[in-house]
């Protein structure tokens, strides 16, 4: 037996597989990982402090920039927090449009996230290009509804900024017709793919009790076999009207997280189809006409949470009665899902770190804020 020595190395912050500026301080023994410490803060841009200088409405475009893949979901969480604080009613039609947008966001996030995950495994570009191709169609819908592809800034207090454009529905139906083929193709290409199985099965196991202890949420938690979804656990908006399943994994490895995301895309499509059925009968307009946008909430605090594609996204606001929030705190799912990375990587090889990180699906804009 050769005598080996422990070695400390840095992966990142300038490393193409870290999905942004993120550093992992890794202690290795040969190729095996003894310890891993995630180090973040390289993208810190004072989001929460800036938000305390802005009025409530001015923060809406800033929330887009947290998790730039899912600006619609961020908007919804923030709008819900302020609506709860002020007591603004949201018309039914606006709620349906919101749900529609957030579920589309979930599909595009998972299409992108799985593409990057496969990319990290070394199956270069193909799946990523397929995912980006599908994502592009959804971004085009966002552009026609909100005016921007990524930084949508579509939500307002009491509804959404504008009603859906007339050509939105036909194009959405085209998209839904083409979508199962994309998901099925991805599953057919990857489900029993030897490269994926070798890199994903039994890698990065997060046991359920550890996942709970770290308060991990989203597909990472569901991959570990705990059926926790804020949409089911505490139905917000109008999620109690839809029929959908919460897919869960069994082992909690990278492969389970992959399968959970694939299935969530199908469930999101189911929800969108139900939205399309119920939307024509919905009451009210796209926004509550009585809702003031330059709000001045009463003194108090509020926490609103949604199931963002990456996990539970929460906004905690404290109002001192002025037009600006006194405290503005975000419970960012990427940040909390990243904390058990050390436990997930321990005992695996250096090459697995990249795959495990890819399977958590982080966006550094949200981790560092």
């Amino acid at each position, binding site marked *: 037996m050769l005598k080996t020595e422990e070695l400390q190395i840095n992966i990142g912050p300038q490393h193409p597989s870290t999905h942004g500026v993120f550093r992992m301080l890794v202690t290795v023994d040969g190729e095996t990982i003894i310890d891993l410490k995630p180090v973040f803060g390289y993208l810190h841009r004072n989001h929460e402090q800036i938000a305390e200088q*802005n009025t409530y409405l001015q923060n809406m475009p800033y929330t887009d920039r947290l998790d730039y893949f899912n600006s619609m979901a961020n908007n919804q969480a923030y709008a819900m927090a302020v609506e709860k604080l002020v007591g603004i009613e949201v018309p039914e039609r606006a709620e349906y449009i919101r749900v529609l947008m957030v579920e589309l966001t979930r599909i595009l996030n998972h299409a992108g996230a799985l593409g990057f995950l496969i990319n990290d495994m070394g199956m270069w570009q193909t799946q990523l290009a397929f995912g980006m191709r599908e994502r592009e169609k959804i971004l085009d819908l966002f552009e026609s*509804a909100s*005016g921007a592809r990524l930084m949508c800034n579509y939500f307002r207090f009491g509804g959404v900024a504008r009603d859906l454009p007339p050509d939105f529905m036909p194009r959405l139906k085209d998209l839904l017709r083409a979508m199962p083929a994309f998901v099925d193709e991805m599953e057919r290409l990857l489900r029993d793919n030897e490269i994926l199985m070798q890199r994903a099965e039994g890698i990065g196991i997060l046991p359920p009790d550890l996942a709970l202890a770290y308060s991990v949420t989203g597909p990472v938690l569901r991959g570990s076999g705990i059926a926790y979804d804020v949409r089911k656990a505490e139905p917000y908006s109008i999620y109690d009207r839809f029929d959908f399943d919460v897919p869960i994994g069994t082992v909690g490895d990278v492969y389970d997280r992959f399968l959970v995301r694939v299935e969530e895309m199908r469930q999101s499509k189911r929800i969108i189809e139900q939205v399309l059925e119920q939307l024509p009968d919905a009451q009210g307009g796209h926004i509550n006409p009585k809702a003031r946008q330059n709000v001045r909430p009463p003194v108090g605090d509020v926490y609103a949470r949604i199931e963002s594609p990456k996990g539970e996204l929460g906004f905690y606001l404290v109002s001192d009665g002025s037009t600006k929030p006194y405290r503005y705190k975000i419970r960012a799912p990427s940040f909390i899902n990243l904390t058990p990375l050390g436990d997930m990587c321990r005992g695996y090889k250096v090459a697995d770190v990249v795959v495990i990180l890819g399977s958590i699906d982080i966006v550094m804009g949200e981790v560092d804020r």
Partner: protein
Amino acid sequence: MFGELVKGLRTTLKYMFRQPVTVQYPEVKRPVRERFRGRHELKRFADGSERCIGCSLCAAACPADAILVIPAENEPDNPRSPGERYAATYEINMLRCIFCGYCEDACPTNAIVLEHQYELSFYDRRASIFTKEMLLVPEDQGHGEPPPVLKQIERRPSPPAQIDL
């Protein structure tokens, strides 16, 4: 083994004759949607007068503090805009602008509109400040009549009400 090879080559051939989903960007430009929020323009009325009345509501609404408006009093015999005042200086810092569209929402006369131009690169930071001359549309491209409320100068409507144009 041989069958799989044929299958793979057939897939490749199939994609070779398919219309590509990508666009050859600098030569071919992807059209943007109607609501796209791109470069700002300062609009005019049909008679050629400026729509901007220098009220600075856009600067107040801007979350990124990108807009600078310095208003000045209109000369009574040669007014630049209907109403009392006009924007003597109107600057947008394109490095600060986040294209949220709140200036458009706040404008009482629909003077500032986010249009469809999205190629906004420049070589130095000084060039990032778009001045009023750059933002204002040519005189013959105005639209709409000035609303009567702006002509009642002596009545001094304040604060400027949201006028539906």
